[in-house]
């Protein structure tokens, strides 16, 4: 009875006057306030990076004058471009290796039959939750005895090795959605197993590959623990350990610190805004590992 009376007016106003409902206005205010609070640290960072070096302790949120001096100094004094290229090179090679091997293996686990398939798969997957800190010491020792410690190649190999199980898991899931009939037809035509994978199945798995690429790119670009531990020569460092080392070294020069942070954040945010859908897909799936 009471439900009826309360429902009637609500249904009546429906579409046109919705915006005026106080609940909705409050909701919007809450959302705007929350989003502003979330974005504020980033905005403040940008403003700090634009201050002249002597204005850091100046009062007020806005800098007295805008100066790109900190960016120039970060670019030249810190060899920012060099570290950026280190990050890019390490990340691209890792992504290439992971995608190639994970696609091959994922396809095999999804579409081919061979003895002990499931046990092998389970063993690979069990370590998904493995904390990096649990293997960083033996990895350090292993690279040292292989004389790969302190080399970018060593770091890339470690990245590929530790990332493969999860990427393979994603690729298997994608290949399983593809129909078996294509494979059978190709086999009847006498197509070899690798050719079936390479020419027929791989092109069809493109959306899956895109997701793995984005996820792996993010993960490798942002990785810190292994990069910090396995690369000791500062000039070989990718961006993450460099930014970490800046805190001690340049903590007196905050504008340079802020400028380097902005230069690190901007590329990944631009990529994210442009490829939002794939990013979100990669991260929501990828979150299982991270």
């Amino acid at each position, binding site marked *: 009875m*009471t*439900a009826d009376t309360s*429902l009637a007016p609500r249904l009546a106003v429906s579409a046109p006057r919705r915006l005026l409902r106080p609940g*909705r206005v409050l*909701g919007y205010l*809450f959302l705007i306030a929350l*989003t502003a609070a*979330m974005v*504020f*640290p*980033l905005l*403040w*960072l940008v403003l700090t990076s634009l201050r002249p070096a002597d204005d*850091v302790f100046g009062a007020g949120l806005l800098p007295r004058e805008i100066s790109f001096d900190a960016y120039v100094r970060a670019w030249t004094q810190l060899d920012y471009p060099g570290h950026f290229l280190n990050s890019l090179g390490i990340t691209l090679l890792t992504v290439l290796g992971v995608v190639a091997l994970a696609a*091959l*293996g994922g396809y*095999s686990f999804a579409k*081919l*039959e*061979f003895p002990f*398939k499931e046990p092998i798969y389970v063993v*690979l997957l069990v370590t998904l*939750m493995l*904390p*990096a800190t*649990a*293997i*960083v010491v*033996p990895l350090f*020792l*292993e690279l040292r005895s292989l004389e790969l410690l302190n080399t970018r190649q060593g770091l890339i*190999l470690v990245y590929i*090795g530790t990332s*493969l199980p999860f990427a393979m898991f994603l690729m298997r899931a994608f290949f399983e959605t593809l129909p078996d009939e294509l494979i059978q037809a190709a086999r009847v035509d*006498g197509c*070899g*197993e*690798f*050719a079936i*994978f*390479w*020419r027929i199945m791989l092109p069809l798995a493109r959306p899956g590959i895109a997701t793995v690429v984005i996820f792996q790119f993010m993960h490798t*670009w*942002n990785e*810190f623990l292994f990069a910090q531990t396995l690369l000791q020569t500062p000039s070989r460092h990718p961006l*993450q*350990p460099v*930014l*970490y080392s800046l805190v001690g070294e340049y903590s007196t020069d*905050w504008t340079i*610190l802020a400028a380097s*942070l902005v230069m*690190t954040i901007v590329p*990944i*945010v631009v990529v994210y805004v442009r490829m939002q859908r794939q990013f979100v897909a990669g*991260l*929501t799936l990828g*979150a*299982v590992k*991270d």
Partner: protein
Amino acid sequence: MAVLTAPAQREQAPPARRGPAARRRTAGYLFILPIVVFFAFFVGYPLVRSLYLSLTQWSGYGRPKFVGLLNFSQLLGDPVFWQALRTTLIFTASTMILQTALPMLLAVFLHRGWKGSVVFRTLLFVPAVISLVVTGVLWQLMYDSKFGALNGVLRAFGLGGLAHDWLADPVTVIPALILVSVWQTLGLYLVIFLAGLQGIDPTLYEAARIDGAGGRQQFFHITVPMLRRVTSVVLVLNMMNGLKTFDLIFVMTGGGPNHGSEVLGTYLYGLAFGSGAGATPALGYATAISMVVLVLCMVGTVVQLRLSKRG
């Protein structure tokens, strides 16, 4: 590659007809071989070696000295270990609760399809694409006692009395780190919950409304139960990230002040790779702690799986 191998295999095909299944089997093994080799080298063997090293005393040079369970019995009497364990568990429990409840509520909010909700979602997600190191350095600046923005905001609102060095105070350091973690992950878990909400049949809400259920009742009797799977995934992820937390704390405080924010990850890293100047690396002891982290993660996963299966 493909161009070269494909014709060759095609020519072989007819005579080899007797064993297509065998050939498929070989292909299957060949295709997974690189993964297995990489895995064995960079995950499997290190893990086994960790297990062995945790039973030794070793500074990284010469031969490790086998000492049985000595490291583990030493852990029992190590006050820093207990402190780090406690902090790890507090951090994990707090982030599990906050980083599940807040994104869920926000997702319900945004799911109403209001105008501009895509813009809000995009902006809220931005911190999730930024690395933990960058996040850590950024928030170190934010929390700085002299000109950090947080104290600035407090002063602007006439709360200057509250301003202090957030990361140097053992009372505020953990809440300060938790806040950063919430900031960093809110967008990610929001998106996961939004995906979950999209999977709920809207007719359920219609039926509930006709039965006279209010917003709160709909939330507790439809949304929460229907989101159960997503919630358990988010809880597991938060638990894992909490138990193995390292980057953020290492960057922001290094475990300080005076072990005040030490977690198992930062403690073992310092022991192995020397945070204190001149300290001898204690690789055996450090790997023993890493085994504790590993066991915590395994136990946590099993408990979570049990709970979510029962549900």
